[in-house]
């Protein structure tokens, strides 16, 4: 009752850790068997190794957190030679999150990493708001995002999902632009740009100044955007943004996501992904669903047949 089919992906269940919150899986493999997961979205990989931003890189906010990791990662070569081969011991599809400062960098990473046998899809991180060059630019202008998507599609051996940034006026326009450019799917949302000031020092807690907001605080924004986008495009959406419990997962599916990713919650409860996978069937049954797919888009599918506004 949990299997989900998406371009390039045959998921045992619709639950996967979100990029950047799970590294390359080594740490969580000490806690549980990664083969239980629907998929794994690995940390953003760039062409060269990156150290990232100065610390502090995280700060807590009400029901949320800010991060400005700055895409720290060991670089394409090491990911191809060490991380992905290590991950291949698990029976789980890998979605490789890739980032870059130029179209050429994205293209180069996409071309190589999509050849790894366990990489079943790419996730184009066009929206990381932390990295000063690139990131924010690609993700906020429809044409730019479309152009990048097309370039990556041309070289990728696997389906390409584009990860949308919520820091835009018109999320539907972004989604349509990447769909038109050939994206096989959409993942959303990345973090919202935020800031927290330490009143004692008068300065940002995060050394970088601003950071990306994630966690339950952003959930209503994620749900709204998924609700809007999933109705406007034909390609599937993988939803994320503040999911903490099984009802949150179902809320995202009902909003229109076909599968969900869990980010920040992994820090709060390192076992959250497997606990959600275990809890999902019962909760679905309780709510009267025989298969997880039945939830998908229910919020707007229902709307079309009956209106909930006052006569």
């Amino acid at each position, binding site marked *: 009752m949990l299997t989900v089919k998406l371009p390039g992906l045959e998921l045992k269940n619709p639950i996967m850790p979100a990029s950047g919150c799970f590294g390359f899986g080594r740490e969580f493999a000490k806690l549980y068997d990664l083969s239980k997961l629907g998929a794994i979205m690995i940390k953003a990989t760039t062409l060269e190794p990156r150290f990232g931003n100065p*610390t502090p890189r995280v700060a807590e906010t009400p029901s949320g957190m800010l991060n400005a990791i700055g895409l720290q990662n060991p670089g394409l070569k090491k990911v191809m030679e060490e991380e992905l081969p290590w991950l291949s011991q698990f029976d789980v599809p890998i979605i490789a999150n890739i980032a870059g400062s130029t179209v050429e960098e994205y293209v180069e990473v996409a071309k190589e990493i999509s050849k790894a046998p366990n990489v079943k899809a790419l996730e184009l991180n066009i929206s990381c708001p932390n990295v000063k060059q690139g990131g924010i630019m690609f993700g906020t202008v429809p044409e730019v995002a479309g152009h990048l998507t097309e370039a990556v599609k041309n070289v990728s051996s696997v389906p390409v999902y584009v990860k949308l940034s919520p820091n835009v006026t018109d999320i539907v326009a972004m989604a349509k632009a990447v769909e038109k450019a050939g994206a096989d799917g959409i993942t959303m949302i990345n973090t919202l740009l935020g800031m927290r000031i330490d009143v004692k020092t008068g300065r940002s807690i995060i050394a970088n100044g601003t950071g990306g907001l994630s966690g339950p605080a952003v959930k209503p924004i994620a749900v709204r955007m998924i609700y809007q986008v999933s109705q406007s495009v034909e390609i599937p959406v993988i939803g994320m943004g503040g999911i903490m419990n099984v009802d949150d997962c179902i809320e995202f599916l009902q909003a229109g996501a076909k599968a969900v990713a869990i980010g920040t919650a992994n820090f709060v409860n*390192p076992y959250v992904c497997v606990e959600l996978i275990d809890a999902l069937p019962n909760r679905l049954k309780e709510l009267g669903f025989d298969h997880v797919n039945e939830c998908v888009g229910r919020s707007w599918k229902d709307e079309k047949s009956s209106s909930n506004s006052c006569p």
Partner: protein
Amino acid sequence: MIKAWMEIISNRPIAKNIYKMELKGELVQRITRPGQFVQIKVDDSFDLLLRRPISIAEYNAEKNTMTLIYRAEGAGTKRLSRKKASELVDVFGPLGNGFPVEETKEKALLVGGGIGVPPLYELSKQLVQNGVEVVHVLGFSTKAAVFYEQEFKELGETFVATVDGTFGAKGTVMDIINEQRFTFETLYTCGPTPMLKAIEEAFPHKKVFLSLEERMGCGIGACFACVRRTKTDANDSGYKKICTDGPVFRIGEVMLEC
């Protein structure tokens, strides 16, 4: 490491805003070294979302108990301080490498500042158990903030400094160190970064182990929140993670800031 509900045996103030919490549970069996830490979820509400890293100040594998000593300053530790005996807390750990006790055979100098003092207590106990002579230098802001002076005294010679001179020597741990000119085989230290820096500068050629702090996300090495650049490698991407490669580092292993 495991995530476990541990029972509060006691939770009470031992100095101004400083609390001592004794916890009981199987998690204790997994602790391997002094200087390791745990990550605590203050309660089941979401507003204080992240876990709080707190050092293990003392543990007893036979009794399945461990002690945390923490300052109730921010919202989370304040909520923690209101918990009562028999309540359960959600603890994840033990995390980190901890202090290498085995690196000292004869004499160790333990230098702690403020809320960096607690992990030195278990360390000192284990050193003493190994027959090592220990000397403690502890720094606090003011008399009201001093804690565990007696406990440390029972283990070895103990010097206390307060910034305002209301207890012990007036000044910082460095003033005591400069004055006393201790001899030692190994120096173990935990405390605020300026203190660690001063120690690093004072003993560039000694065997020194420093315990670092940083704001954390995962606590297990997955999120890259808590990195330090490796010293030899300041211009490229060499780094260590405080949560897993640390919190204890050998002097010179990582840069103390950023």
